[in-house]
């Protein structure tokens, strides 16, 4: 799966295709405070861009890939401050354990 979900963050990695569209949408709808991390996303399918535009989740990191960075990043909200990012990471760990349990 190119998108891996933690409790708070969806991490986009590599080629992100349409297969993830409904899961991402549901995941984002479930809790409006959830974030996305696009840093390692190399290709973003239109169907994945749509939920990002409509549901406007907070962006943890913008894509590093050149084209996406140039054309898509300006259309997305600015990434949230790094302090929050660290905080959220701290909170992430126990919740994964919870899930496993």
């Amino acid at each position, binding site marked *: 799966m190119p998108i891996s979900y933690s409790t708070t963050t969806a991490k986009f990695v590599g080629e992100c295709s349409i297969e993830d569209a409904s899961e*991402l949408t549901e995941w984002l709808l479930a809790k409006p405070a959830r974030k996305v991390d696009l840093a390692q996303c190399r290709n973003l*399918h*239109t*169907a994945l*861009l*749509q*939920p990002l535009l409509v549901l406007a989740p907070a962006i943890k990191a913008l894509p590093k890939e050149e*084209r996406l960075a140039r*054309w898509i990043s300006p259309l997305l909200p600015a990434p949230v401050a790094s302090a929050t990012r660290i905080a959220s990471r701290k909170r992430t760990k126990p919740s994964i354990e919870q899930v496993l349990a």
Partner: protein
Amino acid sequence: MSDQMDNKAENAELAASFVAETRELLDEANSALLALERKPEDQEAINNLFRCVHSIKGAAGLFDLPALIHLVHAGEDLLGAMRDGKLRMDGAATDELLAGLDHVNGWLDQFHRDGKLAPDTMGIARQFAALYRARLGGERAAAQASGDIAYDAWPAWAEPAREAITAAAMGVDALVLLRYTPEEGCFFSGDDPLFTVLQTPQMAWLDIQPREPWPDPSRFDPYACNLMFLIASAATRAEVEMHYRYVPDCIELVEVALQTLPRDTVPEQASASGPSAPTKRKLTALAVELLEAQRRALSMPGRHGQVDDIAVTLRNLCSSQGLPSPLVDQGATSQDVAQAIDALLKPDAPAGPPDEDSAAQFAPVPRAADLAVERVEPSTDKTLRVEQVKVDTLMNLVGELVVAKNALPFLARDAEMKFGCRELAREIKDKYAVIDRIARQMQNSVMDIRMMPVSDLFRRFPRLVRDVARKLDKKVQLVIEGEATEADKNIIEALAEPLTHVLRNSLDHGIELPAERARLGKDETATLRLRAFQEGDSVVIEVSDDGRGIDAGRVRAKAVERGLLDAERAGGLTDDQAVQLVFLPGFSTAEQVSDLSGRGVGMDAVRTVVERHGGNVLLSSYAGEGTKVVLKLPLSMAITRVLTIELAGQLYGVPMDLVVETVRIGSHSIRRMKEAEAVVLRDTVIPIVRLRKILGMDPGDKALESILILKIGNSTVGLIIDDFGTGMDIILKPFAGILMHMGGFAGTAVLGDGRVLLVLNLKELL
């Protein structure tokens, strides 16, 4: 499981109809292409061609035919440019396109046979696509070099972002503005619009907006595409169009100039739409339309000779609108005119009502209209595609009905003679008349179904003539007349091969090289005339050329050399008779076996085929002036009129069209010269033969001989028989099975009283 099988059967059916339709489209495309080569400005032909290719591409999309689609697509792009007047058709382009169509045809056969294409096809497709694209590339370069790109006005959707776009495109003269609105269901066809957009060549600016306001997040459907991409690109229009070629219906594309639009025009526009700029507002909608038409005319290649006309139109337009003429007197260059038109249009166009003016600028609007017309077309002509077998069955049944009906007169006669019931006999005859009329009408209708215009046959010849002529470096114009003439399907099909042969003969042997023609004082371009017309119950097809004609001397020499004739007899022939020697089997004057003709299958093959179908071939030739071959065939073969004859108590049929007259002569008037016999009829000596002798029967001498005078080919022959019968219409059935190869008979027919009539093939017997 059964579902799968159903699916398979459905697919096979679909594939079969795809192959059949595509073949037709290819034929049509071929002829349109040839028409276009002759008349590159023929708008109808280019539209037709474009439509054919477009339809082929569309239909092929249903199957796994990537190579075919790739090639056809590239061809479509090229044709699109030609349709828009950006490129001109020429001989080389026609060659490339024809060769491409040939490949498509070949692949179609492959697909039909194997259900898939060979692996090497993609390579070929790429080659052709590259060829076509190279032409497109040339067009772009040419357009840039001549600098006559017509710029459009800024579309309404780009207006709000105008400054941003202009800023993003620093240092560029012109921009392509594109609004790409993918279809809502595009994800389901595997599209990723964003991916396409991000690959846009030389993209300078991008904005993504919802097509319709976003619904409530809970009702948001991730699989419905609701985006609209606004793009500005510094690439050329053709490049951008090329990039979005798969979604032509979803893009709106305009090309705008940046340098002619300094920023201060923006406030000026605002004032232009207000009452303070009355002169600018004076242009009526019609005037704007006219101006735009002039601008288009000016940007068309090859219109520079008409700049004066356009300038005059412009002056008249200005005076009618009460505006000062923007052009100085005579001698305006195309650039002056273009600038003047721009000056008149520019302040008005962007400020005009955006929903009207700017909408008219978008390419997809007329395109959508085109599509609608396309879809309507097939439904308007109501035709039914029926397998030929079904029509043949129907025809056989009608034939049997005719035969069964013929039994009624016999029945009537029996009623009267055997049972002495005249009343009943008359009743039967009355009913017979009714059934006879209906049967005849049915027969005619079925014949009508089988009738096909010769155009179906002729369609292939322009291509053939063109290809052969190019190969031989000859200049030939093919003139086709009487395409609407109709004949039975079997006749049409049977004619294809002989006609091809005759045409090739003309091209190869008859028509001289351009240099030779010039020397002889003839037009360098030879005329090859293919003419069809109806003559009585026959369809006549004439092939005539204005070439060198047949050299009777050479034909004589060749015939002697091949041992077909001895020198003495050859010398005794008139030129006209000598020319007929080309019909002898094994005759060929060609010095060397060429790719085209001279392989020994000569005119004799032509004659055999035509005669097998009950027709004949006439050849006339005048040295230095040309050759004319006339193929004459019956309109329909189904019903044959025969004369019945009696021989040793048996009935035989003789095709009526061969019979000239019937005479009875005392046996003493038959002159014998050694083995041969002859009669003198109205001062003409007619050789006679005895049918009994030919068929190996005992000679039965009678005091009064019945002689059938027949015309076979160009000669008249008398045939001695026992007695004459009557003429009748029969359905001739050729021999089948083990009798198939029996010579001397054309076939059989069943008579009304159940007897079998053997029909003689006299051409073979005599």
